[in-house]
């Protein structure tokens, strides 16, 4: 299969968790069939806690009971993410793609590009170079480590100072690799004071260039259908995608919404699995 020279960028309206997960899985399947690399940028129609593929549902019950957050389980690994003021991405590469080898390759491409654009606007961003330990002290490979992704530290995570702002996790399927990532744009307050973590907006305070560059992105958080402007058109995100594309010798192709009229029934059908108790409480 010839590998496409286009880096396809899809962007959908904010949606509920099960719909987002179903759409990502279909994106991975479509990419397996067509080859190349495609990314979907999206947000969430309500504040949602997404669990990693193997996390214990019971571990999330306290936060869910306390906050009333919607909850969904991702197909990808990693820790739980509070979605509300973040920008989520799902990238898919076909097996056979140069980035489908070791997991770290795909993480690094997206994370290094983000570090570069954050540094351009004056933030002291970097990658976690070694297993630096999680907040709470557990080792990064502990299966029962911190519940939240942004309290975990794995090699290659994007940090600003000590604060993690971008983490990613993968599902490695037979025909493609699906990588989820969450860029913490603003502090998420919906879960209460015990769960707030500073986002880029808070970390940019006092850094004029960074503050200015985040205005457009922050305006989209929390998301709503009325303010569903394309995040990919915001300067910082656009530069991030361009850097990713440049690093791979690709050109960015903005393709609009992935969930079109033709795709809608398939997404709805697939979303039922992600809504089911069997999937949600599988562990």
């Amino acid at each position, binding site marked *: 299969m010839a590998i496409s020279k286009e880096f396809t960028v899809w962007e959908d309206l904010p949606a509920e968790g099960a719909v987002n997960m179903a759409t990502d899985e279909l994106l991975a399947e479509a990419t397996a069939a067509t080859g190349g690399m495609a990314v979907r940028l999206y947000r969430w129609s309500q504040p949602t806690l997404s669990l*990693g*593929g*193997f996390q214990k549902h019971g571990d999330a019950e306290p936060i869910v009971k306390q906050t009333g957050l919607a909850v969904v389980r991702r*197909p*990808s*690994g*990693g820790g739980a993410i509070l979605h509300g003021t973040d920008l989520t991405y799902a990238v898919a590469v076909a*097996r*056979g793609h*140069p980035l*489908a*080898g*070791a*997991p*770290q390759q795909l*993480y690094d491409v997206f994370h290094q590009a983000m570090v570069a654009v954050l540094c351009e606007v004056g933030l002291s961003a970097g990658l976690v170079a070694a297993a630096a330990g999680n907040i709470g002290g557990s080792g*990064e*490979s*502990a*299966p029962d480590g911190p519940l939240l992704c942004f309290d975990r530290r*794995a090699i290659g995570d994007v940090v600003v100072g000590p604060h993690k702002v971008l*983490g*990613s*996790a*993968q*599902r*490695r*399927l*037979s025909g493609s690799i699906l990588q989820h990532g969450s860029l913490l744009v603003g502090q998420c307050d919906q879960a209460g004071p015990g769960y707030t973590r500073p986002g880029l907006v808070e970390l940019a305070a006092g850094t004029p260039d960074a503050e200015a560059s985040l205005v457009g992105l922050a305006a989209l958080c929390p998301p709503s259908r009325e303010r569903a402007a394309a995040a990919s058109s915001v300067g910082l995100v656009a530069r991030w995608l361009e850097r990713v594309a440049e690093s791979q010798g690709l050109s960015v192709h903005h393709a609009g919404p992935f969930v079109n009229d033709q795709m809608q029934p398939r997404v709805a059908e697939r979303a039922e699995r992600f809504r089911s108790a069997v999937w949600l409480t599988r562990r």
Partner: protein
Amino acid sequence: MKFAKSHEWIRVEGEPVPGAVATIGVSAYAVEALTDLVFMQLPEVGSQVNAGESFGEIESVKAVSDLYAPCSGEVVEVHSELPDNLDLLGQDPYGDGWIIKIRLSDPSQLDSLMDQAAYDKVISEGTH
């Protein structure tokens, strides 16, 4: 021993005839690439696995990978100690790191798998 593109290996005990027992594991390359394995989910004895379909999952620090059956058959034995001792996968991937044993239902499926030399070539070319 034969290999699937998805990095599982299969080894048949005796002649590859219907009903023969075959052992399945994952290649050293795959284990090394995943790094820091933390959790594994395996099938039940007596369940059916189908060639090319997922029979279990393995989680590394930040990636969940499906395990795909190289051939179809009934699961006759599961390496039940493995989830509690995932280091075995890296220490001895073709021996003590075995994952399941199945009773082959269609040995002809072995013909579509790679031998060691072909698998090594795929790995070295990075076309996996």
